[in-house]
């Protein structure tokens, strides 16, 4: 049926063909109407708003009517490049993400491997049910619990003092920001992130294990030579996807955790953009900082996609 339709479309001039195709697919166009409106109004229109970075924004004139900034529109970009604090925020973002990745990426793989060794079905299921749960808690709840545990009268500090130690100002010290941020990410995500690896594990070929057992390979050798190579493609894909997200951090969580004491390491691009753009109404400057972030992310996505294409023949497009 569809081939008949296609043949019909191919006859006639370009204009006629287009009209006929639109008439044939009118229901699909109709269905697509609202989503298209959404993408144009709330994705592409703001995307056009990026030109703000090159303009002197005048609220009365709107984004389109505002005049171009001086220095051929590069005034704000030049300001950003010379801004030392911007570079601090930029590297804070990258360092926080790399450390986060180094810890929260391998942990779910290890958890999946451990769960895979569990023979008792209900025990495995209990561990899964409980460890998936924190994934659904909000950033405010997580930071709230973090505060309760680590503030000056919190459980951790009372334990430290009861053992004769001195209180540690976890929440307001620059040294402890990254461990708390990454640790709570781990707590929240380790179970949920293991789902994908568990699924990969369950699709491995059982006959390989049979064969290995007959050859006298123990559990450890089986894990090393069958299980790990078997889930390697999944690991590689997940790692590449994670690399693509290297510039995006949880604004909601960091904004709540940040204070005068830890700002020098906690301030990242998104919090800086919020502070400068939304709170200080420094629109052009903040848009420029955001543009910087988008371009770096895009660069990472393209690079990782290229590597992925070569190494695993899997790519995003």
């Amino acid at each position, binding site marked *: 049926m569809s081939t008949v339709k296609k043949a019909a479309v191919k006859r006639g001039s370009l204009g006629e063909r287009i009209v006929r195709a639109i008439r044939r697919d009118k229901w699909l166009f109709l269905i697509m109407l609202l989503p298209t409106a959404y993408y144009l109004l*709330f994705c592409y229109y703001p995307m056009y708003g*990026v030109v703000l970075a090159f303009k002197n924004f005048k609220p009365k004139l709107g984004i389109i009517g505002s005049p171009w900034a001086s220095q051929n529109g590069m005034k704000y970009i030049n300001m950003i490049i010379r801004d030392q604090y911007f570079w601090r925020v930029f590297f804070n973002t990258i360092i926080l993400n790399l450390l986060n990745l180094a810890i929260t990426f391998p942990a779910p793989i290890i958890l999946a491997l451990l769960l895979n060794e569990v023979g008792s079905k209900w025990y495995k299921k209990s561990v899964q049910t409980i460890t998936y749960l924190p994934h659904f808690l909000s950033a405010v709840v997580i930071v709230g619990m973090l505060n309760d545990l680590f503030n000056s009268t919190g459980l951790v500090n009372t334990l430290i003092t009861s053992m004769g130690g001195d209180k540690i100002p976890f929440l307001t010290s620059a040294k402890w920001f990254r461990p708390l941020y990454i640790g709570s990410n781990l707590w929240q995500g380790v179970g949920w992130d293991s*789902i994908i690896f568990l699924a990969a594990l369950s699709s491995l070929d059982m006959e390989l294990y049979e064969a290995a057992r007959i050859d006298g390979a123990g559990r450890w050798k089986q894990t090393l030579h069958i299980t790990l190579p078997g889930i390697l493609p999944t690991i590689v894909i997940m790692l590449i996807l994670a690399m693509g997200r290297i510039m995006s951090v949880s604004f909601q969580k960091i904004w709540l955790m940040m204070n005068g004491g830890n700002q020098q390491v906690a301030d990242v691009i998104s919090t800086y953009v919020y502070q400068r753009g939304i709170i200080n109404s420094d629109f052009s400057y903040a848009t420029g900082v955001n543009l910087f972030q988008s371009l770096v992310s895009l660069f990472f996505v393209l690079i990782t996609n290229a590597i992925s294409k070569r190494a695993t023949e899997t790519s995003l497009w």
Partner: protein
Amino acid sequence: MTALPQKRPSSRPTAIREGGIARTLFQAVNYSVLFLLMLVTLYPLYLTVITSLSNGMDVMRGVVRWRPVNATLATYKQIFKGDIMIYMRNSVFYTVAGTLVNMVMSCLCAYPLTRRTFCARKLFTAMVTVTLFFSGGMVPMYLTVKQFGMMDTIWALILPAAISTYNMIIIRTAFASIPESLIESAQLDGANDLKILFSIVIPLSKATLSTMVLFYAVSHWNSYFDAMMYIRTKSLYPLQIHLRNLLVAGVANEDLVQATGTGEAFAVTERTMRSATIVVSTLPILIVYPFVQRYFVTGVMIGSVKG
């Protein structure tokens, strides 16, 4: 479809037959490590609950560890005396309305992208995909919402986030797995695409769609960022903003109470109020969680296949 890990009888046959003492030792360690993980996961949640039920001064002295101390419902009485019911109602409303819009829009968007004969499929797919990798960012979005006159209205919380492209792609993947022949035979019967979408495609994708309902609903329920950006009127605040304000204010107030050395009489403190609010705001998720849990794996799997 890939087999789901939970549905398999056991992941690897015969844990008992092989190995001797080393195997037993490994299993003992393994079970203990996982037990510890469960404890570590649950304890902060449990601590929050017992904190909310304890006397505020005992909490501050740090003696609340395993069970409520001087158990009292005073904190809950106190928070329900406040505006919490308004924020709760707002959050429920935003979540239900927002998720409804999300689901309708995502399904509408996903279906045409799966129709192989659709002449503009590539164009629309490109339109959607670009947004995964590039966006205007915070400030242009803020100005857009302002320009459209949506500041301080519920629309600011619903329309700018009407479609999450990631979730939409998961739905598209589910729709695409429906046999073409089914749709073609409906077309032969004279059904139009809108009818096919609602009477065939959507009913056949229930598992994935319920996962998406959960994902969308949780993200509405948990978000404070959009409300912080766009909502100014206190009576429109969602619960998470209220909780955030308690959190921000709490740190300062608690230090104050400590510094002045007053407050033997405080059964209810910022700390217990915060804990109680956390409990109240998390309860809905805990109630829904067991019912939707079995669908997760499907959703996450499909999502990861297409990145």
